[in-house]
């Protein structure tokens, strides 16, 4: 979220300064504050961005100067659209973590590419045509870019690393039993490619969290008391459909074989552009007043990989059992 905010602020600054320079040097009728509002247009910002980049391009041609790598207006417009697309998808139907990374990456690239041309221009202008202040700003902007972009990349890497560290990364071996000692449930691991991570990585209210063989495969366990199985199941369906509106969900309630343990199962599946095929499996076990739920999920763009990962998710979820 920090990167997202930085990149967004960067756009406001870049738009304002570029428009201000153009007003002073080329067209006094330009009102920089109007351009500041451009990012609020969302993907439509591609239009004013294209106009502004075109203005810079024509200026370069008129001056007939070799000013280095100036971004093509069409490229700038496309960059804007591509940058906003994941953001748009985020609203519609997607998983949060992976899309955030995409958005941040694209937004970081955008100001670098678009600013490059302006910086080159400013560096090569003579004093007679331009004031010191813009040049000074350009220099400062260069510094800002270095701070905002080149320092952001290590920060970005650091954050990802930190995220992995916070996950705890306890490797799981086949047959390992995880669960609160002496309590009524446990998770029996059948697949060695899972990692137990610290709680709080995937959910704020979980009791156990796990990452599967890849970043898009995970499982979370919730332990509660006095909750109705139907309530847990309906909440899970509602929760999944909030993010995946086109998901198809099926719920069943049974008894575990040879027992009086109620087992509620929710299985939601679907497919979207960004993640490919996805599956959510929720298994809710109830023994009298104790309820424990495991939610496991994966998403894969490759259908064959999806089948394999779905099987792993199902297998891991089936590892939740009650201690009799």
């Amino acid at each position, binding site marked *: 979220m920090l990167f997202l905010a930085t990149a967004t602020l960067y756009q406001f600054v870049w738009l304002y300064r570029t428009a201000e320079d153009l007003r002073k040097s080329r067209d006094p009728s330009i009102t920089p504050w109007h351009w500041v509002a451009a990012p609020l247009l969302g993907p439509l910002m591609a239009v004013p961005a294209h106009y502004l980049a075109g203005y810079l391009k024509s200026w370069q041609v008129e001056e007939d100067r070799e000013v280095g790598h100036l971004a093509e207006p069409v490229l700038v417009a496309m960059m804007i659209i591509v940058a906003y697309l994941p953001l748009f998808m985020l609203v519609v139907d997607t998983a949060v973590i992976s899309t955030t990374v995409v958005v941040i990456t694209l937004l970081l690239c955008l100001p670098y590419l678009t600013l490059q041309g302006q910086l080159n221009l400013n560096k090569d202008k003579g004093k007679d045509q331009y004031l010191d202040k813009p040049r000074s700003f350009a220099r400062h902007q260069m510094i800002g870019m270095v701070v905002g972009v080149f320092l952001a990349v290590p920060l970005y890497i650091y954050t990802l690393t930190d995220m992995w560290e916070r996950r705890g990364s306890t490797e799981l071996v086949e047959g390992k039993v995880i669960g609160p000692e002496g309590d009524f449930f446990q998770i029996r691991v059948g697949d060695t490619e899972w990692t137990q991570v610290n709680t709080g990585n995937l959910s704020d209210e979980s009791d156990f969290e796990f990452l599967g063989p890849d970043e898009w495969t995970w499982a979370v366990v919730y332990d509660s008391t006095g909750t109705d199985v139907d309530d847990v199941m309906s909440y899970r369906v*509602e929760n999944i459909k909030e993010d995946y509106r086109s998901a198809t969900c099926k*719920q*069943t*309630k049974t008894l575990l074989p*040879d027992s*009086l343990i109620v087992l*509620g199962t929710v299985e939601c599946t679907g497919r979207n552009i960004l993640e490919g095929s996805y599956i959510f499996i929720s298994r809710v076990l109830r023994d009298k007043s104790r309820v424990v739920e495991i939610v496991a999920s994966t998403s894969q763009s490759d259908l064959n990989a999806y089948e394999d990962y779905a099987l792993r998710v199902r297998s891991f979820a089936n590892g939740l059992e009650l201690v009799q």
Partner: protein
Amino acid sequence: MKARTICWSTCLGTGLFLAASAVRADDLQLDENVTWSAFAQESVIPASVDLSIEVADGAEIDNLVVRFRRMDIKLSADTVETSVTRVYRYGTLEGVRDYGNIRTYFDATSDAVNVQHAMVVDSKGDIHVVEPGTVQILPSDTFNVFSDSRYALIPLKGLDVGATAIVINTITTDRNNDIGPWGMSLYEQYAVPQERLEIQISWTSPKFRPEWHSQLDNMSCTESDRGSLSCVATGIPAYPTGENTYYDDVVPQFVVAEKKSWADIRVWYQRLFESALSADGSIVDTAARLSDGLESETKILEAIHNFVATKVRYVGLEHGDSAYVPHPTSTTLGRRYGDCKDKAALLIDLLHHVGIEMSPVLVSTTRRETGKLVVPTRNYFDHLIVCGTLSNGREYCLDGTDPYTGIESLSGWVQGAVALPIVGDSTPTRLPASRYAWVMREDLGLTLTETGDLQERGGMEYGGTYGTSIRRNLSGLSSEELQDWAVKDYHGAVSDLVDPSFRFAGIDETGTDLAVSWDVMYTDLLLPSEDLDYSERSSWLNQAINSLRTENDVYDYRYPGLQYESVATVDVNSIWEVDYTGPDIDMQSRFGEFRRIYDINGQTVTVTTSFAAPATVIKADDVAHFNRFMDIIQEEGKLRVMGALRDVD
């Protein structure tokens, strides 16, 4: 351990009681069977014997303790003389209230009772002799059960906490007046603790040596060569009580009877029963009239059973020989009344004259365990039905005293009971029992209106013995009474917010299930301006489960079986769009299965539910699991429909 002592001013010495004595001239005749000679004002408890008891501090004091119980039975060619001695100590006021009247049972046909002592030594040592004028002689039989058993109700006088009561009586059975082989059974264990139980049996000749069997673990019996048996048990705890229990199956009993085989019992009763069958013209004519125009055997069977069960009313005629011997069938037909034996004989006779052969079956209505019948005796049996196999190979058992049950199933109260068919080489067996004694079918239509009201159209069909019992309760009620019954039932099971209007069908028809239907409107139940979240309990199923759950964890539970099927439709109206239903259910356990399927069709959700848990014997240590299964069905059986508010545009 610190102890305190409760001591009476008088004490009891065993072996000093008076032996049974013949009726004396100055005895008071209370009844044709009962005489009274308990006039002695002095204690029969000699002071030399200490009857004090020690009760540990904090120990619970029993309401009543049987300090001493002795049965002294003397068998001879003409009589069986039984001397009964009972000494009780009353530990609490509750004990005084609950056990202050002593009962002495006897057979009015063959027994003579003489009460020799009936007195109370109160906590101060004062003696209170029972006033003979207060003794009542009452019949002990219950509806539909044949016997000539009666009892003398002896109200003890001057009872207080700490008092001791002593009752000594003799029962002399005249074997020449006895209708069949002699036998008796007595509970060795009581609902209160016993300190000492003695059973003495003697016989005057080896040929009178009886067969006997004790079921009490710590009963010690010694048989002598001189023709006697002596049994003693001490420290017998009270038997635990538990609901839904046939105590004759679980409480240890001492059975002693004239040595006979089951074949002897069958032949004896066959002879008695056949004497009632007649070739009277009225029987032939009635059989022909009832079967006229009916082609199948089952139709004929149904018609004749219906005639005997509904057109011949039940009247208990159980005195003397009539306790076991049916009246002539022509007499019963002419009277249009009779007891179980009379009706069974009439059924068999009428059916015989239309070519359907059935046999009498002696039934022990209070027993379900054949393994407990170790000593062959007629005393186990107290009811009579008929059974037979039609040419289609199907066996039917019919109870002529039940006008509410058709031929397709046996009356609920004797299903699974221990029985002795009076045919072939039969031995005690169990009567057939339905897989499901409770059969319920529900049809529920729920319509949610635009104003947030709920319109309910409901229907219930009751089958099995449960349906029969409801039909029995409803039979003869006026329309107003039926409505009141149904409203109360609805309030108890579903809701007391409304008083539905009910309709009934099948109350007087044994061939169909009883049907109850209703319409009702719940107003302002939902908010039509918000998304829909409607849930509904399976109220009628829950009500049945409440009745079938048991708290008895002492004895095995004979669970009678429940089958429930339901189709519920929920019309959510056009203002909502169904976006969620509860989960489909497929729960299976060793006790039964519960299934539910949701089907969404536009604005209507159809919920199909079935529950089937067949009759079985639940072991005492499995009752908690059984109850848990029933809990799960109730807790997880809620149906749920959710819908999003549609856009008004």
